[in-house]
């Protein structure tokens, strides 16, 4: 058991536990807060995987924007901030079964793959992943087109969101 493994196990436990809380807790604000914990755990995982940029971006975008939007939405869509009734459908056990089945199937499937237990190659010393990522994102030989498409998607989503949620005059 190395320190890295201990850290991973703790993080994983936090992620899974909080994710479980996200999907089960009745209080939606709590669910959103638990989601933040999950996302933070994922950010830690990214950091341990030497993906510092992804980790920080995870914090900025997911926690700083998405999670907060969620909390907003929860607050806007609840007249009173107390929940009533069960948080889950009546047929939740069926969903649980399907989810378990998916998990089992995925693990079974991946465990049959040869590279399942392979170890990480040594991280190249002096390799600047952020610079490499930056080059990959804007280089015409790499991903500039998907990158631009993603930006267009974001713009479209922005416009769409404004249009959909816009309260016209005269509406309630």
């Amino acid at each position: 058991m190395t320190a890295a493994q201990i850290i991973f196990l703790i993080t994983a436990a936090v992620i899974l536990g909080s994710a479980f809380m996200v999907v089960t807790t009745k209080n939606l604000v709590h669910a959103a807060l638990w989601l933040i914990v999950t996302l933070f755990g994922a950010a830690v995982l990214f950091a341990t995987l030497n993906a510092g940029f992804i980790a920080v971006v995870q914090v900025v975008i997911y926690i700083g924007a998405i999670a907060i939007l969620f909390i907003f939405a929860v607050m806007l869509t609840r007249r009173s901030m107390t929940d009533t009734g069960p948080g889950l459908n009546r047929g939740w056990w069926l969903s649980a079964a399907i989810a378990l089945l998916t998990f089992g199937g995925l693990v079974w499937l991946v465990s049959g793959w040869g590279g399942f237990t392979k170890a990480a190659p040594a991280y190249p010393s002096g390799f600047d992943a952020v610079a490499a990522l930056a080059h990959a994102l804007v280089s015409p030989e790499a991903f500039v087109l998907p990158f631009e498409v993603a930006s267009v998607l974001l713009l479209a989503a922005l416009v769409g969101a404004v249009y959909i949620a816009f309260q016209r005059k005269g509406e309630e």
Partner: protein
Amino acid sequence: MDFWSNPVKFLDDWLTGVFSGWGMAADAARVLTAFVGILVLITLVMVLDIFLVWLERKIVSRFQDRIGPNRVGPFGLIQPFADIIKLIIKENIYPVGVDKAVFNLAPVLMMMSVLLLWAVLPLTSFLGLDLNVGVLYVIGVGALGTVAIIMAGWSSNNKYALLGSFRQVAVMISYEIPMVAALLIPTIFAGSMGINSIVAAQDTWYIVLAPLAFLLFLVSATAELGRAPFDLTEAESELIAGHHIEYSGMKFGLFYASELLHAFTFGGFIAAFFFGGWRGPWVEAYPALGLFYFIVKATIAYWLFGWIKYTFPRIRIDKMLDLNWKFLVPFAFVLVPFLALMHALLRETSFYALGMFLANIALGWATIEILRRRAHGERAKVEGAVEMHG
């Protein structure tokens, strides 16, 4: 190993050696040493925080033509400790309907979001983590503060608190954009997102190369900090105290302390990004001297925040958002490519610093001119309308 050239590294190695000597695994020793380091840093920061309370009260009283704390200890230096004791012995009140867990967690998270920033604050050349995503880290941690404020506002079960936190979220999300843009400029100049690298690259202070970026950062940082004139989260006359309305005792104390420390931290970042950080005379020979320079510069920046806070009146929330979306964001989007272009053009020339400064002045003058004309137009329209009706 020369202690004075890098005392932190010296102590770190020594402590790791000690732990290893106790028979610990190398990994565990390293982790433990890191924890010790973090603990020491946080302790020092918290102690600094205590003195910040005193400093803040002294500054405000000077601005308001008072003397400020002067009874407890010399120059009232012991006054903060008295305040702390008072806060600690206060009753721990939970209003009806609070979400206890979240309610308790919020001030901690608030404090944490500030303390996390110190991880990347380049106190000296050897102190402060040179993350290669340092600038983004600053932004990201700021998001945690937002979460803390939302948690506080929501869990208090108080509509003022909730309103305050809503405002805070709107402000934070909005002002993050010019802030990121302002921070992009030192990043572009230095060619790195590591804050220590940015400091190391500042042969000329960036306030000279990019005074407009400095102003942009100052404004957006003031908004991010929630300090006057942008302290709408806790605007007394409207929301009583905003998100921490229901907090009392030491929990309120944490909010208060975190606000002051946040301000000082951002003063530190201003120092790092625009004032040359720890750089100063003889720093190459005695790196520890950098700490002194840095503290001085950060204090000056902190005093700047205080100056702003006690000089400007609070503005309305819609005006504040207008200012951001209609002025700061477009301005930032002009400024970043402009300065990047000027930087690319002038970098190799002998009049780099002067040229950049003049370019900034020119852009600033153009912006003010445009604003002036617009204002004249608006005014003419309003007056015309008045005349017609009159």
